[in-house]
């Protein structure tokens, strides 16, 4: 573990009876990065995050957070978190809930107004938590996580229940946290979200870590989309081009992995073969595509 590693997880396992909710997961999060923890619902994301915070005891494996064991008071004081939805006292206002949390943490109440402002709840801060919409509750959860001015922020599905504008604001907020030098761990089942705000991603499926890499690495090269007819001629023509790395046919289009400098040659070859070319454009491969590719590979190996 280096000074720059904030979270180091080695072969972490949590079993409930025969079922392994988390199965030999290893991951590392570096200081100052926004780390996306990506996987479908029930993949083991929340269980892993709970273990990072000392809420759940691992069955086996090693876990270091900020250089210490999880759940240690000195470590918890430096982590702001929201796990599996915001949980607060319904009979207290948003502001009073933050005051309670500040007392638990012994962190003083000076930052409460600023934090409410940050999550855009200042005008509703004195209303009872029970009257909040899901989005407002979610934002209060983030406010509580920020109250300690933490080094590490752990947010479990922070955009759950938010409307599109709320999601956009939340992503911008998380990005700002990362830019301000904090380390952020964010879990999500939404690939677009992770792609937009994370530096590195760990993909988990059915309790097992599938891949851990940068978003760029995972996304790989861009693809060339070709829409042309007739399909059989298109396919046979492209198959003959040595510089085309891969071809896959999707509905009425073909996607190629081919270096950008060959785009003109691909088009020329198709036209010379007598094909009607309706569209040729470059797209970034979406994380979604990568994810399904990886998880499908995983399950076929299983």
């Amino acid at each position, binding site marked *: 573990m280096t000074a720059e590693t904030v979270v180091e997880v080695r072969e972490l396992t949590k079993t409930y009876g025969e079922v392994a909710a988390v199965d030999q997961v290893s991951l590392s999060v570096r200081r100052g990065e926004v780390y996306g923890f990506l996987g479908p619902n029930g993949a083991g994301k929340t269980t892993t995050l*709970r273990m990072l*915070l*000392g*809420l*759940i*005891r691992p069955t086996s494996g090693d876990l270091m957070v900020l250089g210490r064991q999880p*759940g*240690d*008071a000195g470590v*918890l*004081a430096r*982590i702001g*978190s929201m*796990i*599996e*939805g*915001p*949980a*607060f*006292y*319904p*009979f*207290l206002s948003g502001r*009073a809930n933050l*005051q*309670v*949390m500040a*007392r*638990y*943490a*012994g*962190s003083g109440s000076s930052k409460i107004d600023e934090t409410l402002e940050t999550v855009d709840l200042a005008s509703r801060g004195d209303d009872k938590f029970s009257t909040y919409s899901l989005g407002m509750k979610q934002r209060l959860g983030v406010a*509580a996580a920020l109250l*300690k001015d933490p080094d590490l922020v752990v947010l479990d599905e922070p955009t759950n229940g938010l409307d599109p504008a709320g999601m956009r604001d939340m992503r911008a907020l998380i990005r700002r946290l990362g830019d301000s030098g904090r380390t952020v761990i964010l879990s999500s089942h939404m690939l677009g979200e992770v792609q937009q705000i994370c530096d590195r991603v760990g993909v988990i499926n059915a309790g097992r870590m599938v891949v851990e890499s940068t978003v760029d690495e995972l996304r790989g090269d861009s693809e060339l989309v070709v829409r042309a007819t007739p399909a059989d001629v298109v396919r046979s023509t492209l198959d003959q081009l040595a510089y085309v790395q891969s071809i896959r046919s999707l509905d009425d289009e073909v996607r190629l992995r081919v270096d950008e400098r060959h785009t003109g040659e691909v088009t020329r070859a198709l036209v010379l073969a007598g094909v009607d070319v309706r569209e040729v454009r470059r797209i970034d491969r979406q994380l979604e595509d990568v994810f399904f590719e990886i998880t499908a590979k995983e399950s076929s190996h299983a």
Partner: protein
Amino acid sequence: MPDVLNVTRAELFKLVRRPAAWTLLAAAALLSQVFGYLIPYLSFAGDGSGPIEGASKDAILASTLPDQIVASTLGGFPVFAGALALVFGALVLGSEYGWGTVKTVLTQRPGRTAVLAGQAVALAMSVAVGVLVLFVLGAASSTAIALSQGESTAFPSVLDLLGGYGAGVAIMLMWAGLGGALGVVLRGVALPIGLGVVWVLGVENLIAGVASSVLTALRPLRDVMPGINAGSLASAVMPTRPPGLESPPGINSDVADGRALITVACYVVVCLAVALWTYRRRDVA
């Protein structure tokens, strides 16, 4: 230690803003006043066909005067105050599970031992204040009755008052502790309250009744029951009752004074230990 203090501050901040806490205190105060003062006073002032039979009017009046404050206040503990304290303990510790706030609290800073210790301190402080409120209200009512009837307004000695107050707090701590421990073990509010109240108001009276009449072999069991010991402890600190008045229901001298106090204290310690042991080792899912 600073962590425990921080938790206590947070818990007290919550409790004074929690409507349920005030409702319970109001219920305890109302019942205490009604059964300790209002009903006896009405029996005294009425035509003699009041609810308290076999006692002279003078004795009934005497039972409401300041020098009987310990008896008037503790008299209600076996019947309703104990049950209310149990509900209070279950609410303070069990509600956190219903709201899912256990995880929120446990990720702030203090470790589990500090959190539970802080909560226990806050619970104990609230109980001490609650019992004090009952005594103060009793003092006000008894003084008012004494003044209106031209009777003595003399209170018991400070030592007797402290003894009565201390015994009251010990009894309420035991019930609140049982409620709190059940709240932690059962991770909720409804089941602890249901089970606890059935026990306090039903099962224990049944066992006590059977043990004193048809099946005396049950006495050793009876003598370790929380309610029996609470009743014996209360009776130990009560002044001599005016002639002709029976002890309030549940007040007994089945267990020797010293043993009753030790048993009640043991219940407090055991509740704390069980709650702590459970709280420390269970996953928060």
